[in-house]
């Protein structure tokens, strides 16, 4: 083109305006694409817009007076996935039809909406079904030929149970230290903790393990994250602004999060239940207060979860997240409830009402059949304590007997495995400080009395209908009972104000194996196998001496681990054993054979450890010796300088200047006594 212009200029004659037109046979060799690329990019496509439209079915049909409110709710829910540019609420006969169209700015946002909102339960009668508008077309036009769907890329997190394959059966635990700045996962070895993973600011407050140990949950301003597998990769994220508390279902299928920030009347968001594997939000709930967390209590198999509100017990079932039988139970005055850890049975109690006595009820789920009702008189308060397998329920009843002023405590023991659930009563003479069932067993321990006269009693619930007091120890410095998760052994601890007094007890013959102390201990944690106990001083309760100590179950101190501003240690739980009862029996029979092998292995590793330690010491020794040798050499070389500084006096050896020593004999006056000799004659 340039040449052409030049040509024109050359031909220009004064007075005449030059022609700037292209010559007649000029062919434009620049495409629109090159010239106007950016403009063309935004040319509206024919299919545009439709891909970003979603259809929502099962929307409530409302009249014009409630339309505004409905639109607000819809908008609130669906604007989470992107910017809504268009909405259409078709109507018929004065009400909305029950399905709506929403348009986003991009197909990606529409896809997000389908992924997350499909199946969202707005309320009892309305569960949204969300689809991409173009899908309707797609489904209408399904070809008769089958095309294999494309494979989704597999997100491999590795073996989520990897830690169980440790050849030395070491359990893991999480440690939060540096006042929360660092979180570490360690493997528990007898000699010293082995670091598995440590990250700064992994969590913003604290951590929780899932009930079978598969996931580690960390807390953040925006929600929680779940980590797992050998490398602790992030498996799932749940967005819940300002989350404070969480709870897992026992089967690890669901996690419940609570945040005080997110609640509104139209869209309950204080408590959210999530599906862990898919990351989907299953249902949101209101929450008045979080004082008794977890608000929702799960049945042991994860099939049901329930919560108590004023005069009401609401039981929901999974996976639908709907109320069982579509209605809550009206239980006037209900004070507390809990699930049996072994069966789908709920225990609850109601206080006295006019002339109806207080009572404890056991109810089977889902049938709602009342298995057992127990009337109680003059009740002040009740607490429910289930034994770990659901074999027994202990109801601690505080009563004020008629005609007296004081409060006495009874333990009502329900024998769940016997026909018609008989109840036996144990009367306690003193006030109760702590109560705990033996896991996997039929004993329980009670701390009673008043400081400084605190006693511990051990009871055995026998098969013959009797509950026997096996042993009592008095003058205990304890305010908490910690049973081994396998039963038989326990630790009595005087935490916090009792300065960390510890007693290790074997309840098979009720002997105290060891008495020790971890000054200012704030927590005691058994490992899941019952082999080790960790006592710790948390920075959250005491600002100095922050450390965790590892003991054997017999009370022998193995390690003292000082960690700067140590806050919390949590053992990683183990999933239930995969072995059948038969297999366990066989292994127990052959225990002697196995213990020989283990002992040999232990001895080898010990001597290896000692060897390592010995080698390390030898190296340190040698380095130090070499350093001292060099230092002494220099010292010798500097001798003339030293002599000079001290005027020739040799002070290198302590006793070097014996000649300088002077001996002085000093006489001093002690006493004068005048003894008259008298007349000699």
């Amino acid at each position, binding site marked *: 083109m340039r040449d052409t212009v030049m040509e024109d200029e050359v031909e220009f004659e004064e007075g005449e305006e030059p022609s700037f037109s292209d010559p007649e046979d000029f062919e434009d060799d620049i495409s629109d694409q090159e010239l106007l690329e950016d403009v063309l990019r935004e040319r509206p496509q024919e299919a545009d817009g439709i891909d970003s439209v979603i259809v929502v079915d099962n929307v409530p049909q409302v009249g014009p007076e409630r339309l505004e409110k409905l639109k607000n709710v819809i908008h609130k829910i669906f604007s989470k996935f992107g910017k809504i540019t268009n909405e259409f609420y078709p109507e018929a006969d004065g009400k909305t039809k029950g399905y709506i169209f929403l348009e986003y700015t991009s197909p990606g946002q529409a896809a997000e909406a389908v992924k997350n909102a499909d199946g969202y339960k707005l309320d009892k009668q309305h569960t949204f079904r969300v689809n991409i508008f173009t899908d309707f077309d797609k489904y209408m036009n399904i070809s008769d030929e089958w095309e294999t769907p494309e494979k989704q890329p597999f997100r491999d997190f590795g073996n989520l149970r990897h830690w169980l394959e440790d050849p030395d059966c070491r359990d893991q635990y999480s440690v939060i230290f540096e006042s929360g700045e660092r979180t570490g996962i360690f493997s528990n070895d007898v000699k010293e903790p082995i670091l598995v993973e440590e990250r700064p600011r992994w969590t913003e407050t604290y951590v929780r393990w899932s009930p079978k140990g598969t996931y580690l949950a960390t807390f953040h301003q925006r929600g929680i994250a779940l980590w797992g597998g050998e490398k602790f990769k992030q498996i799932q994220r749940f967005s819940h602004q300002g989350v404070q508390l969480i709870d897992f279902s026992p089967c690890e299928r669901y996690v419940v999060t609570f945040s005080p920030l997110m609640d509104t009347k139209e869209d309950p968001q204080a408590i959210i239940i999530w599906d862990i594997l898919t990351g989907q939000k299953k249902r949101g709930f209101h929450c008045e207060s979080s004082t008794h967390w977890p608000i929702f209590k799960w049945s042991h198999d994860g099939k049901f979860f329930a919560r108590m509100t004023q005069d009401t017990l609401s039981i929901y079932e999974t996976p639908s997240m709907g109320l069982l039988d579509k209605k809550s139970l009206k239980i006037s005055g209900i004070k507390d409830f809990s699930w049996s850890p072994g069966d789908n049975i709920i225990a609850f109690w109601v206080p006295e009402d006019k002339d109806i006595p207080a009572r404890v009820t056991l109810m089977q789920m889902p049938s709602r059949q009342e298995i057992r009702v127990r009337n109680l008189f003059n009740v002040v308060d009740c607490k429910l304590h289930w034994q770990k397998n659901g074999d027994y329920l202990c109801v601690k009843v505080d009563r004020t007997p008629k005609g007296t002023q004081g409060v006495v405590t009874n333990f009502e023991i329900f024998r769940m495995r016997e026909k018609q659930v008989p109840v036996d009563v144990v009367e306690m003479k003193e006030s109760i400080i702590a109560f705990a069932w033996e896991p996997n067993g039929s004993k329980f321990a009670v701390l009673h009395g008043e400081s400084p006269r605190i006693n511990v009693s051990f009871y055995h619930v026998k098969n013959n209908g009797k509950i026997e007091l096996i042993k009592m120890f008095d003058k205990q410095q304890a305010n908490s009972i910690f049973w081994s998760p396998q039963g038989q052994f326990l630790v009595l601890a005087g935490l916090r104000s009792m300065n960390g007094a510890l007693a290790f007890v074997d309840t098979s013959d009720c002997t105290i194996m060891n008495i020790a102390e971890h*000054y200012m201990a704030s927590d005691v944690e058994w490992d899941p196998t019952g082999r080790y106990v960790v006592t710790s001083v948390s920075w959250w309760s005491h600002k*100095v*001496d*922050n*450390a965790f100590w590892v003991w054997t179950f017999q009370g022998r101190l193995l390690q003292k681990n*000082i960690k700067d501003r140590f806050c919390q240690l949590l053992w990683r739980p183990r999933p239930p054993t995969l072995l059948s009862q038969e297999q366990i029996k066989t292994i127990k029979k052959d225990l002697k054979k196995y213990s020989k092998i283990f002992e040999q292995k232990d001895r080898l590793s010990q001597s290896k450890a*000692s060897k390592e*330690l*010995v080698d390390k*010491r*030898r190296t*340190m*020794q040698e*380095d*130090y*010796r070499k*350093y*001292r040798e060099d*230092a*002494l050499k*220099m*010292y010798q070389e*500097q001798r003339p*300088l*030293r002599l000079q*500084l*001290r005027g020739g*006096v040799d*002070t290198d050896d*302590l006793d070097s200047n014996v000649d300088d020593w002077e001996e002085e004999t000093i006489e001093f006056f002690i006493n004068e006594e005048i003894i008259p000799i008298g007349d000699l004659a």
Partner: protein
Amino acid sequence: NGHTGAVWCVDVDWDTKHVLTGSADNTCRLWDCQTGRQLALLKTSSAVRTCGFDFSGNIIMFSTDKQMGYQCYLNYFDLRDPQQIEENQPYVSVPCSESKITSAVWGPLGEFVIAGHENGEINQFSAKSGEVLRKVKEHTKQINDIQTSVDLTMVITASKDNTAKLFDSTSLEHIKTFKTERPVNSAAISPIMDHVRCTVAVGGGVNIVFAVFFHAAYEEEFGRVKGHFGPINCVAFHPDGKSYSSGGEDGYVRIHYFDPHYFEFEFEG
């Protein structure tokens, strides 16, 4: 009698002719050891925190606190020059603007002073010019005490960061670290210093306090001694290495003699 305020430091020269004291009454005083007569009085603008005679006994140093607008200074006086004493004019005065000196000892040949600072730094100040010859920052918090080995080749520093560290006096090379779970107020090196036996004693703590003993080469703790009712402020070994003494906030000075086992026992190694 003599000072009119708390005495923060005291030192005696190598043949016990003179005694040097520093006090919160803003003076550093020189005394005749035998008679107790005050020989010199050096006025300062703030409390004298550390003081000491060099190896020859001819040069004295003392440091003053950062107080009431006055900086921390490290001052050197040559006792052979009476004019310096009369006119209260140190021949070298080093200001420490960043972090005040909390503890100081002389180097092995009187060439420099090794000073520990509030921020955990250790500096070697030349006794000739006052310039910093070497510096290290191994501690993360205040240095509470520095003591030398009996042959002056090593120094041990006690710090608020819960550790005591061993350094070479001349090179300031960091040789060993001894860890405890509480701030360390004082540390000392046993005079019986063969390569096997060197033990280090540290004292410190807030509630229950111990004097803790470490094997110098292995950096491992092998013993603790209870007894004081309050924090231990200083520890020192007897020159024959057979006993040690500790002074505490509770107002007691305790002297402990080591039992034969201490001298005999060996770590596996």
